[in-house]
């Protein structure tokens, strides 16, 4: 395999991506279905999305493809599809030292199963397991899909993953950048059940209908629910306040063994991301950011320095999270 080490993770035209595939490169791709479906078979995985953070600015494109060129990292890999019957094997399938990148279709059984169970999978934290939830043009009826480049087939109900082996002297490290801070002086929310919706919950210890509480108190649902995992602030975004059925729909699950708080609204998303991104001595191999940050923060046309990648319908950093930038470095 010829290595094209000078190439970076960035947006490319389809002709360049076809050349890379035909060269045998291992690629993780993000693009609109209309362009992904024209790619030849090869060593690649992909998910549908037409929103990106490019080198110069955030943009919408149904022609360009975002390429993470994994051949620069390793030649040893395994591409595998996952559904609810085998997702529990994802950590077991990974190499002893490496990482796993996964793309999941939204609102399907595999999405729900992964979100609810991934944290408890044995060995889940031995290597970085990261990736994103596929999406589509928000002004279309398109169906989000994942692609297995080996077979050339797409799916709307299966996740696709690539397990990559790293040499012994390298280690992959997964990090997140969350611009939202917990409102520690505000209410404490304790769900009564695990899941993607909240009906009744405990608000400051009192049983309360959460949809009614949000509606009555005019809470800004552009800012996510948050919980602290030993200092890591994990976001769960609001999808819809269903006052008719007295429930709150969410883009990721809440868990009854966790305590949640509202977050403090952000004024300037792009500036806050740049402010919160740590100094990194090595190159970022992968990054993605959330469609809600892109929309609420009006990131189209704005630049986040040194971080490029797909704008996604959910981010995966061992588990499903929302409104968060996820990135991988190799040291």
């Amino acid at each position, binding site marked *: 395999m010829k290595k094209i080490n000078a190439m970076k993770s960035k947006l490319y035209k389809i002709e360049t991506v076809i050349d890379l595939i035909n060269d045998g490169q291992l690629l993780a791709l993000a693009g609109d279905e209309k362009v992904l479906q024209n790619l030849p078979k090869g060593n690649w995985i992909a998910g549908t999305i037409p929103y990106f953070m490019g080198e110069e600015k955030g943009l919408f494109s149904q022609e360009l493809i975002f390429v993470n060129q994994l051949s620069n990292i390793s030649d040893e890999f395994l591409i595998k599809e996952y559904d609810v019957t085998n997702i529990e094997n994802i950590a077991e399938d990974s190499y002893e030292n490496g990482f796993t990148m996964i793309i999941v279709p939204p609102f399907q059984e595999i999405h729900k199963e992964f979100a609810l169970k991934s944290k408890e999978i044995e060995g889940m*934290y*031995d290597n970085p397991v990261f990736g994103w939830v596929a999406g589509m043009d928000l002004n279309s009826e398109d169906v989000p899909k994942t692609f297995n480049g080996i077979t050339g087939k797409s799916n709307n109900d299966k996740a696709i993953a690539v397990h990559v082996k790293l040499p012994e002297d390298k280690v992959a*490290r997964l990090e*997140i950048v969350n611009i939202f801070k917990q409102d520690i002086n505000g209410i404490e929310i304790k769900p009564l059940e695990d899941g993607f919706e909240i009906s009744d919950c405990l608000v400051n210890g009192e049983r309360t209908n959460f949809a009614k509480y949000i509606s009555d108190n005019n809470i800004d649902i552009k800012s996510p629910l948050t919980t602290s*995992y*030993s200092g*890591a602030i994990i976001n769960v975004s609001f999808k819809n306040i269903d006052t008719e059925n007295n429930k709150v729909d969410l883009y990721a699950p809440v868990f009854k063994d966790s305590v949640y708080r509202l977050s403090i609204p952000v004024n300037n998303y792009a500036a806050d991301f740049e402010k919160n991104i740590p100094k990194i001595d090595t190159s970022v191999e992968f990054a993605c950011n959330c469609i809600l940050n892109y929309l609420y923060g009006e990131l189209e046309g704005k630049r986040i320095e040194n971080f490029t990648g797909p704008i996604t319908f959910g981010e995966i950093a061992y*588990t499903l999270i929302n409104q968060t930038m996820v990135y991988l470095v190799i040291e």
Partner: protein
Amino acid sequence: MESIPKKDRPEWKIILNPESKIVFNNFVLQMKITQAKKDIVKGKKTMEKAVDEIHALCQKYALAVKQDMEMIFNEKN
């Protein structure tokens, strides 16, 4: 701190105590410790097994967890 402290140090059990409110800087350590504490509460994992796993994780990410190790074990080179 050049290496990760031995597994028999009592601090490992302190950070894995489900009542512990200690916060960390490294992301995978934050995730792993939170899950390990939940597994201990549910009886899915023993404290000894959790210490083994956290110790192995810290050895793998020795550089990335350096700040957390110094904070927990109060040791600096």
